[in-house]
């Protein structure tokens, strides 16, 4: 579903991402981990078309992002750590607006259901300013899920959420994967990665350090046998 081949991003002489290749299959949750400045955010932003890679190709559902960005993006949803909302659109208008952008035909039927599912139906006429942090996050998720994306990318999805919100977010990720979506989750919370992800990609200084299930990674490094994910992460990144 998500194919990345030789992804490289340069900022002048700075190599933010260096020849990164990996794939995420439907139903899989790939955890993207690495220390600060490792290139996680650059990778994610390249994958959703925010920034253009210097080299390499990215395909979403068989559509190459560079050659066919509109159709590739139609299958994507990006959930940033901070919800990005328009100041003067109400909750319901955000969903209608998203429906127009993604060309969703049956949105009128899906919007009320989605609002109810995310407990936003009482706030349908509210502006973002009237919403709590958690509600804004829910709205951003609702906008992201409205077009039923087959590839989802989460950047620090638990930031600013209360315990109930965290639980719901984790459930959302797992359920979407169960329904066949390919998911990439970038986070510093190794516990979350361990709990939700089926595979882990460790990135350091822009380069892929390790990829696979924790068992597969440990198999390549017998010295890490019996260690926690935190210890494995620290050993792999030398931090």
């Amino acid at each position, binding site marked *: 579903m998500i194919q990345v081949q030789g992804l490289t991003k340069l900022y002048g002489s700075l190599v933010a991402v260096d020849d990164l290749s990996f794939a995420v299959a439907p139903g899989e949750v790939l955890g993207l981990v690495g220390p600060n400045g490792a290139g996680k955010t650059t990778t994610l932003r390249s994958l959703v078309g925010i920034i253009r890679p210097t080299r390499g190709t990215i395909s979403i559902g068989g559509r190459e992002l560079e050659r066919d960005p509109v159709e590739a993006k139609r299958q*994507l949803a990006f959930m940033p750590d901070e919800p*990005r909302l328009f100041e003067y659109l109400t909750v319901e*208008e955000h969903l*209608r607006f998203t429906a*127009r952008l993604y060309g969703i035909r049956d949105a009128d039927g899906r919007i009320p259901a989605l609002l109810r599912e995310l407990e936003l139906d009482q706030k349908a006429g509210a502006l973002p300013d009237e919403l709590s942090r958690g509600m804004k996050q829910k709205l951003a998720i609702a906008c992201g899920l409205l077009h039923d994306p087959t590839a989802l990318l989460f950047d620090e999805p638990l930031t600013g959420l209360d315990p109930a919100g965290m639980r719901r977010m984790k459930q959302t990720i797992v359920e979407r994967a169960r329904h066949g979506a390919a998911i990439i989750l970038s986070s510093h919370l190794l516990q979350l990665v361990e709990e939700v992800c089926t595979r882990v990609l460790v990135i350091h200084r822009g380069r892929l350090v390790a990829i696979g299930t924790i068992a597969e990674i440990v198999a390549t490094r017998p010295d890490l046998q019996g260690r926690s994910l935190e210890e494995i992460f620290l050993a792999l990144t030398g931090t």
Partner: protein
Amino acid sequence: MIGAALYLARRSLANGLRRRLARLRQPKYLVGFAVGLGYYYLMFLRPRFQSAGGGGLSGSAAEGIAILGLAALVGIGWLFGTSRSPLAFTPAETHYLFTAPLTRRQVLNFKLLRSQLALCLSSLLSVLLFSGGHFPATRVLRVLGLWLVFAALQMHSGVTALVRQSLEEHGVTAVRRRLGAIVVLAAVAGVAALTLRAQPPTLQRAFAVDAASGFDALAALLHQGTLGVLTWPLAALVRPALAPNLAAFAARLPAAVLVVALHYVWLVRSSTAFEEVAVESAERMAHRIAAWRSGRRPPPVAGAAKRARPPLTRLRSAGSPLRAIAWKNVQAEWRGSGVRLPVLIGIGVVVVAWVASLGEAAGTGLQVVAVLFLAVGAMTVVFGPYALRNDLRSDLQLWDLLKTYPLRGADLVAGEALGPVTVLTAVGWGCLLCAFVASLAFDVPGFPVPERGAVLLAAAIATPALLGITTLIQNAAVLFFPAWISLGPGRAVGIEMLGQRLMTVVGSQLLLAIALIPALIVGAVAIAIAGVAGVTGVWLAVPGAAGLAVTVGFEGMLAVAWLGRVFERSDPAAEIGG
């Protein structure tokens, strides 16, 4: 306390200057700095004319105008002001001052003291601006006098904000919040009307002589009877700034200081909710700063959550994405705009029409109304695209979100620009129509109603084309030079930023002129063809406007396609460091 405030002001100034100087190593800031410096020289320091103490107005006339100006500022502040205090604390100030062993009054004194440097600088620049490049020693008195005016205004705004904040916290609705101010202002207006009821003929005669005599008569009225009592604090405040010499300044100073002192006492006594207001403001500011630094949209400024106005039209969930983006931007204009500007313009139109109708040479009020609507319409076309910024200039704060949308860049750019163009076209057409309707009430020799209709039609055709191309140029500027344009409502400060803005404005004007050359040629050709076909007189303006609109429209389509490709290839991280 004073030592700490001075230390903070001194070090902040020094470090800020050092940082700005270091930034000049980058060519874009250096060029901006040079242009900004040139602008300041031209505006403030270049000798232009010998100022003759008030530019032809007598002292009393200048005082009258100053009193009216201050009264307007105070009235607008109470009617339309926000709960944002001009004495808002920065997050760092909140952290250090509110946790320090200081009384509330000491904290307030600290803030007032710290803000004096900025007020003093504002006074100096204001005096320099009107000095014509000449700065005799007596100008120092004007700077000091103006400083007192600014200090009193700052404290007055502080009181206004505290009162509003207190009412908001007690759940008082917006209308009821304004009720007190409305009652007081209505009472003042009533007193003014009673005082002035027999005066129009006197004023009319005075203005008929010349403007200076008219303003002299107006100033004399402001000092009469009850009105004189009401305007005394304003008069006391402005007199030192208008003093012709040191002796007069010294004589007028005590009364002005008394007004400032009374404002200080008022502010201190109003500050029961001071800490809460200050802390809340600081938190909001911290959120905004964090958002800007991460290249994202900051949270809204107002403290209380806004209620959504009902949409102008409901967005259907199926249809063109381009129109959805335009609809979003129209909603932002509709929901983001206050009633302040339309009300002020309305009051302005009525007042100007009334004043103009006083003079013998002026026409009827309706003639003036027609002219004013034409003027507002023209200003909408010329300045509107710079004022309405709900397009890429606002949405590039969400650059990363826009780039995730499954849209062609050209569709996105077109949708973004279409929003403000739609709003401005509606306003422009509205003004043209109002002017036309008002003109039906009177005769204009040699310009019958059908011909006025032809001009109306031509102007209506040209309006969206001109608005479209100007808006697109502004959007192009923000796409090509995002670091030079203020994204959203905020404005970066500094000489180099001013220079960058000036260059952008000049570049935009140049581009507009270039875009209009072929349009004017095609318009002229259309007029010639229509002339051959038998169209005559003012009616030739219609094909001319159509030729211009078609050409500008074609240019706009090319520009949209080009800007769309630029947007698709843009990198938000590289452009704004997000």
